[in-house]
């Protein structure tokens, strides 16, 4: 399979899943926004980053979803997926930990 075909297939598979189950923690100046992907508004805006991440993890567990924590420049810092009720890290600090996402 070509590089282009692999990527197109991956994008289609990711697009097909319920993106509202993906919870993002996004830096916004000195605050942290917790929001479901494709939601028009944030679920919560918190001053404390750790509280924001805890809330996102709890929402992901409830929805059997995923958590993505962003760096200040918008890129991915950490990506966790709920499997069997537990959060597993698949990506952290630029190093993919698993290709089976």
């Amino acid at each position, binding site marked *: 399979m070509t590089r282009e075909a692999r*990527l197109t297939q*991956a*994008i289609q598979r990711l697009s097909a899943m319920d993106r509202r189950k993906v919870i993002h923690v996004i830096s*916004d100046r000195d605050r942290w926004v917790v929001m479901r992907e*494709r939601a028009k508004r944030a679920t919560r805006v918190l001053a404390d980053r750790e509280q924001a991440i805890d809330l996102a993890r709890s929402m992901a567990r409830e929805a059997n979803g995923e958590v993505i924590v*962003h760096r200040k420049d918008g890129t991915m810092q950490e*990506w966790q997926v709920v499997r069997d009720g537990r959060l597993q890290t698949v*990506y952290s600090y630029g190093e993919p930990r698993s290709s089976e*996402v």
Partner: protein
Amino acid sequence: MAPDPSDFDRQVFINCPFDDHYQPLLRSLIFTILDCRLTPRIASEDADSGLVRFEKIRGLIRACRFSIHDISRIEPLHPGDLPRFNMPFELGLDLGCRLYASGRLAGKQCLILERERYRYQRVLSDISGNDIRAHDGDTQTLISEVRRWLSVATAKDLPGGSHIWQRFNVFSTFLQASLTKAGFTTEEINTLETAEWIRRAQGWIHSTAAEQG
């Protein structure tokens, strides 16, 4: 999808550094333009090595009503480096085009960005009095400044800066997840060609447009 050369009023020429340090800012700049339903035009958008760079720049300046020039590299990136003159040179070309041309080219508009607000006055005092906006090397600030300028320059109702920033975050990780899932290495992801990045961003913005209303 290739930009339509006849779409002068929707095209935005980007004149900025192409080094690795600037890449997050460049991507946020491109995304902002796309999310405002405009078309970014940049020298690295195609892989035609046969075209002399200066001719490519000339063509882009003529094709775009709007231009965004980031002259942050008037200061060398590392000690011992020399400053980059390409950006101020292309800014001069763009301003010259507006001044000496007639017709639609006389109506061109530009935004000048710098890392620090008044630093340019020490090396490029001829443009003192122009509206120079500073981004402090911060992607969110850059998105906010570019969005504010575009809303005045285009006289269009545009999405808010925070909204674009959040969408930029979501798209960045969606693309990263897609590429990781497709077996791309971290280096391949970080060095994705600008043209391919633009194509993916256009596709994602189009696919999520209905949800944004």
